[in-house]
């Protein structure tokens, strides 16, 4: 293993200096439209719905408290300090506060700018963190081919039996504790990715619409079958499906982690991959990406070249459930008796205010009985990479989610976000439960297939 000093040197070599400064001035929050910062009326209605406040009962760990800090940073009355950085990385970014806010505060936007300030000021830096960010955010998630190559290597490792050998021999014990926890969270990579499963253009016999399909990055590696199922559900509902090859990350992971410039780059690249004028809608099936994708219009609003297309993109972007509900879901012919519960992914229910449509999708499946999940809109603790950066809080939320799932007495949990699905899968593993975690669209596609038999 390299020493921390060596890692640090590597990080510096890769091109980022490490100022080791104690605090810094705001660049991003300061530039934010002041009315966004001012909109909070500090009424406190967000407090009881915030998972971190609920846990600690400390004002600083609440949206209202964080907004007060962000506003002071923007006003130049508070430096971007390490405590500020820790606080904003303790926030899940689940956006529940946006749902309950009476004043319509755009918390997500402030939060992304605050994290950008934190990265800019370098207050959270340490050699290990720098290297991880360098390798993932700046390298892996900006290079679709590299990401898929790493995916294939990981697949080889998992499928060849090497992984189970390593685990059996307890070689994972050699890893630092952080990485060891991470190792157990590693999702199973699929044998085939989306491009191998979905043709560039697929046309149904009764075509009524033409849509573009986003295959995602993690979704593509780990849940490529969900992409196939999405294409099938679209085809079954009269949509021609156009799927550009080797798609890039949409940039949501960058925007959520303080790399707003990179997020803009990734947005431009994604925009270039689609011929917007020829498509009725762009479809995403990953909740976390969806919230960010719908925000392209705002993200690129001052981009001289892309602003107009980005606005058009935002207008056409649809979550798959939203789109199917909009055009009318064709009910599958066959009955598939099963009892299912539904977990609302934060970035679907809070980020995009989509709660009714996934339930409509499930209700369209003959024989499916939906049992409502208690606290279904309470974050499961996945929150992007939160389960890696804040394992303790993440585990608490996962435990709460699992015990709520237990209360439903069902063995199938539907959820529409790759992060939630991986997190729930890990949680079920810990609880030794043989539940099935599945995307609602996969259940729909299965029912269509059943009907063809």
């Amino acid at each position, binding site marked *: 293993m390299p020493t921390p000093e060596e890692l640090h040197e590597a990080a510096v070599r890769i091109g980022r200096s490490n100022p080791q400064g104690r605090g810094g001035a705001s660049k991003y929050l300061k530039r934010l439209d002041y009315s966004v910062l001012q909109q909070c009326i500090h009424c*406190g209605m967000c407090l*009881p719905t915030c998972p971190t406040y609920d846990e600690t009962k400390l004002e*600083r760990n609440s949206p209202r408290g964080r907004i007060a800090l962000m506003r002071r940073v923007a006003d130049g009355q508070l430096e971007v300090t390490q405590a500020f950085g820790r606080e904003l990385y303790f926030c899940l970014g689940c956006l529940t506060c946006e749902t309950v806010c009476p004043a*319509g505060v755009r918390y997500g936007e402030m939060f992304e700018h605050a994290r950008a300030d934190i990265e800019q000021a370098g207050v959270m830096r340490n050699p290990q963190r720098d290297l991880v960010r360098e390798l993932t955010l700046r390298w892996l998630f900006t290079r679709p081919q590299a990401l898929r190559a790493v995916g294939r290597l990981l697949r080889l490792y998992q499928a060849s039996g090497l992984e189970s050998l390593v685990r059996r021999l307890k070689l994972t014990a050699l890893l630092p504790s952080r990485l060891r926890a991470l190792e157990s969270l590693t999702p199973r990579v699929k044998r085939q990715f989306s491009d191998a499963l979905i043709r560039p253009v697929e046309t149904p016999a009764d075509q009524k619409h033409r849509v573009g399909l986003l295959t995602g990055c993690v979704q593509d590696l780990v849940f490529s079958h969900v992409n196939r199922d999405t294409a099938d559900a679209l085809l079954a509902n009269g949509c021609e499906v156009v799927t550009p090859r080797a798609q890039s990350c949409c940039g949501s992971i960058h925007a959520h982690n303080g790399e707003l410039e990179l997020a803009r780059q990734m947005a431009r690249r994604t925009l270039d991959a689609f011929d917007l004028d020829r498509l009725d809608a762009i479809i995403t099936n990953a909740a976390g990406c969806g919230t960010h994708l719908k925000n392209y219009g705002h993200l690129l609003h001052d981009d001289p070249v892309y602003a107009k297309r980005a606005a058009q993109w935002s207008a056409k972007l649809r979550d798959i459930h939203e789109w199917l509900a909009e055009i009318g879901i064709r009910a599958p012919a066959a009955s598939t008796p099963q009892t299912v519960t539904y977990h609302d992914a934060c970035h679907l229910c809070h980020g995009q205010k989509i709660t009714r449509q996934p339930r409509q999708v499930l209700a369209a499946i003959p024989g499916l009985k939906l049992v409502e999940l208690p606290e279904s809109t309470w974050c499961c603790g996945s929150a992007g990479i939160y389960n890696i950066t804040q394992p303790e809080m993440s585990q608490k939320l996962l435990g709460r989610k699992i015990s709520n799932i237990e209360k439903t007495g069902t063995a199938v949990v539907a959820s529409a976000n790759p992060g939630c699905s991986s997190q729930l899968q890990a949680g079920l593993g810990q609880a030794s439960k043989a539940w099935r975690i599945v995307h609602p669209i996969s259940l729909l596609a299965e029912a269509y297939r059943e009907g063809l038999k």
Partner: protein
Amino acid sequence: MQNVAADLAQMLGAERVLWEQEHLVTYGFDGTAALYGEAGCIALPKTTEEVSQIVRYAAKHRIPVVTRGSGTGLSGGSVPVPGCIVLCLVQMDRVLELDPKNLTIHVQSGVVTQKVAELADAAGLLYPPDPGSMRISTIGGNVAENSGGLRGLKYGVTRDYVMGLEVVLADSETVVFGNKCVKDVQGYSMKDIFIGSEGTLGIITKVLLQLVPKPAAKKTLLATFSEMDAAAETVSAIIAAKIIPCTLEFLDKITIRCVEEYAHVGLPLDAEAVLLMETDGHPAVVQEEAQQMAEIARRHGASTVQVAQTSEEATRLSTARRVAFSALARVSPTTILEDATVPRSELANMIRFIQQVAARYEVAVGTFGHMGDGNLHPTFLTDEKNAAEMARVEKAMTEIFEYAVKLGGTITGEHGVGLAKKAFLPKAIGDASLGLMRRLKRTLDPDDLLNPGKIFD
């Protein structure tokens, strides 16, 4: 101040004393616009004994103590005095006893109001006070501000449900007033002195509350009016008919427009007023009263009257009122929610006056509120960064308060005086009343340690 924090940490443990700048900022305000103060440190006690210890320490070192719950107040009552110890009681959240035989619930003061309402409901009972912030406000804060809510006309306010209190006094002594007896005349009713005292006389640590049986049925109606007077007359006629609705809520024209824009509930945009009416109680009585209320509204010129037939419909009808504040709050950066209150008979007068004043000073004011008890919420939609407009808001507000007092009303019906209304209090209550309040304060808190500078100087 780090010394004070270190001393308090000895008592409570380091994790329950906060003094970092990043913490102090977040405890610097409550739900009131444009008020801020920075404490020296924040203490988070869990027991009465800890509160008493902290007060003893503060008294010894002459450090002011500002008590708060969740900080949702609307008059700046819990905004820190610079350098004070903020006593945040949200971790004192134990429910001590629910006694269905005596219809009482005994809680620590940091218990959230909603929790009390839920526990009562689960026992087939009702805790009637329902302030707008009840999902997060604490019972202690409700008692200290004597909070109201939507059901004031029929059920009264927080004071009407407080049977007993445990209070830590400025000299750190702990006293208990009241008990589970409905009748109790052992000397002065001391608990009443602490209800609504805004943290200036003592620190409320436990509260014994009265519960009532849950009404078996409820019926919801919504009426729209093209004239304000017609709405006001409807309210008077309902009460003259010996009906006491549990809800009689009102929205004015600006509020109606904002609600429509925000929630698209189908209110007519040319309406001058909307009334949401609810009656609860025995099913037969409720049925009859609802019919009568609908009739009275029609007779007094309501343009439309809808009576909910199902609970879903009731929810739909009450949406307009439920979202009123949200609809207004998102219009402008700064929202100032006032609570001038007048006798019911003067409501139409007061509402008209508010509209005239708003027009005269060119400020946007949406008014909604509790028509049944005369408690209005003129809501100023403004921008605290706009000094010129804020000055006009200030003037308009002053006129509104003065007019409310002239009509026999009050400058604050349910938010308290705190810092925000302090300047208006002397004129509203007069020298003799204010003098007596001061004497009481000096008697109970001679060193002026508890929430100094609130209500009056």
